């Protein structure tokens, strides 16, 4: 069992696939087939397929769609292309190489949920991917694939792109809705969930790029066909972004349930000469870290990683070798979460600041032994107490780094230098 080619079926072409190239390779055939189905049949098929949100939370897509009110109230489809989770670069590749894949999946999904308008919210730094998606949408309009009465189906749909402006929190679905409404990208209290009250207080479905693109393959292969790969609870294939200290970083599509060890040592080409695997963050920077022994046992599916106390998240696998100092790496992460906290909930706004200060005081040689337990205590107090999951996302790496690599933290406090690097923070970074 190795790489599979669904979402990545066009990537070998290595360049932007416009409408012509996409159609030559079977593009928009599934849209025509979808229009022959009733919208509720599509939703049912997506439910049966077991497709789960590929952006990070892993919520069942069909179930999410099912939360929409059954009346004819206007609703929106919002594609989450904010891709801010450190380590993740899979959606960017799809937008750059095969944006029509996303657009086709979106029109099918919009038809299923009855949305006449959709937005693709793309992070502002993605200048080139934005240009690619804008170009593809223009092509789709010109070909009658967007607009009024698409392909004679009687279904109307308008699609537009919205560029963010640099805020990790806008990847959180209600933060994204706030941002699209022209506000600060601060998350909103749930309930009401977006499916009931989202963009402009109208029912809104927010799905990740990869999730929406996958819908096309559920139409093509049916729910059972989609389940050919994956496990009972983690159906289908998924894109994984492999990065860090690894020979062949990149995006890989494998069936869910694939071995993490094979991902790293076969597809990823293993460790650099003379280096050993020390740790892996399996699902983006918010996912608790695994040590080398745990990596041996892990498979890339929602249930296995959850049972090991971590998560599949966005599928960003960050590989850390034995030349790295875990205290130093945690400092990178605490800095990030402190910078990105939107500031509206006290435990997160203050907690992320304290975590960052404490880790940096250890790094700068001012740490005390009790600071290590203080980190755990602060992190513990940040969990489950805020409007959105950023606070938890900041706490989880701290808890896992400190509990699994405590010796490195204690050494740094006692000696004022890194156990791995042998030097202090200033020497490490100047």
């Amino acid at each position, binding site marked *: 069992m190795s790489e599979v080619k669904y979402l990545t079926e066009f990537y070998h072409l290595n360049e932007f696939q416009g409408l012509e190239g996409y159609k030559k390779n079977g593009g928009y055939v599934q849209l025509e087939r979808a229009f022959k189905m009733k919208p509720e049949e599509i939703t049912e098929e997506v439910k049966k397929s077991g497709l789960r949100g590929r952006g990070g939370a892993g919520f069942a897509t069909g179930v999410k769609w099912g939360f929409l009110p059954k009346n004819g109230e206007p609703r929106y489809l919002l594609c989450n292309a904010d*891709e*801010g*989770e*450190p*380590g*993740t*670069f899979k959606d*960017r590749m799809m937008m750059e190489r095969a944006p029509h894949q996303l657009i086709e999946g979106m029109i099918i999904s919009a038809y299923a949920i009855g949305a006449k*308008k959709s937005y693709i919210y793309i*992070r*502002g*730094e*993605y*200048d*080139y991917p934005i240009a690619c998606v804008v170009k593809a949408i223009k092509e789709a309009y010109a070909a009658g694939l967007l607009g009024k009465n698409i392909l004679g189906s009687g279904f109307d749909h308008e699609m*537009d792109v*919205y*560029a*963010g*402006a*640099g*805020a*990790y929190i806008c990847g959180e679905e209600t933060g994204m809705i706030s*941002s*699209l*409404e*022209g*506000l*600060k*990208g601060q998350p909103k209290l749930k309930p009401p969930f977006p499916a009931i009250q989202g*963009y*402009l207080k109208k029912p809104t479905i927010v799905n990740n790029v990869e999730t929406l693109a996958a819908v096309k393959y559920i139409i093509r292969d049916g729910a059972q066909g989609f389940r050919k790969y994956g496990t009972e609870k983690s159906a289908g294939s998924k894109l994984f*972004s*492999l*990065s*860090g*200290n690894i020979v062949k*970083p*990149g*995006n890989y599509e494998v069936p869910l349930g694939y071995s993490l060890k094979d991902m790293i040592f076969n597809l990823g080409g293993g460790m650099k000469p003379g280096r050993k695997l020390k740790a892996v*963050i399996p699902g983006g*920077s918010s996912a608790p870290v695994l040590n080398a022994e745990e990596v041996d046992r892990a498979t890339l599916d929602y249930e296995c990683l959850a049972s090991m106390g971590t998560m599949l998240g966005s599928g*960003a696998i*960050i*590989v*850390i070798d034995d030349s*790295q100092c875990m205290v130093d*790496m945690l400092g*990178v*992460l605490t800095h*990030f979460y402190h*910078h*990105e906290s*939107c500031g509206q909930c006290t435990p997160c706004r203050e907690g992320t600041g304290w975590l960052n200060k404490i880790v940096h005081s250890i790094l700068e040689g001012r740490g005390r032994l009790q600071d290590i337990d203080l980190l755990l205590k602060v992190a513990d107090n940040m969990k489950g107490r805020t409007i959105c999951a950023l606070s938890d996302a900041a706490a989880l790496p701290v808890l896992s780094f400190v509990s699994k690599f405590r010796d490195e933290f204690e050494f740094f406090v006692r000696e004022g230098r890194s156990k791995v690097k042998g030097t202090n923070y200033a020497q490490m*970074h*100047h």
Partner: protein
Amino acid sequence: MFQLSSEGLSAVKKELARYEAKDSAIIPSLYIAQKENKGWISNDVIHHLSRVMEIPESKISEVFQFYTMFNQQPVGQYHVQVCTNISCALEGGRELANHICKELKVKLGDLTEDGRFTVSRVECLGSCGTAPMMQVNDKYYENLTNESAMNILRGMK
């Protein structure tokens, strides 16, 4: 006093008509104005946008301050943003940022003496498989070494 060009003004008007909610035009309009104001947003810019968009300054200001892509101070002709988040940090992103600062003789966030460069450290730009990397204005440069990065920057006119 800052004023949008006539093209800028018509672009802002287009954004105002583009979305269901008028406020949705704030972010796109800030981009348009920032481009016309040498890469940053001054109080003048907010004041002018407020007038042409008929949206209170406080609202525009709040949005402007929330997002990192809007610069609160003047930046160089080339804004060099080096990713130092985890995947890049593992592959030398922080060392690259230090090297560029040293070579350009500038501190993080400051302008070089000739006003051409500003160097910043930024969070994840979604270029983790091609680390280390930098973004110069709108463009990504990936798989960098200290040498290749400096060659790219020195080649900028």
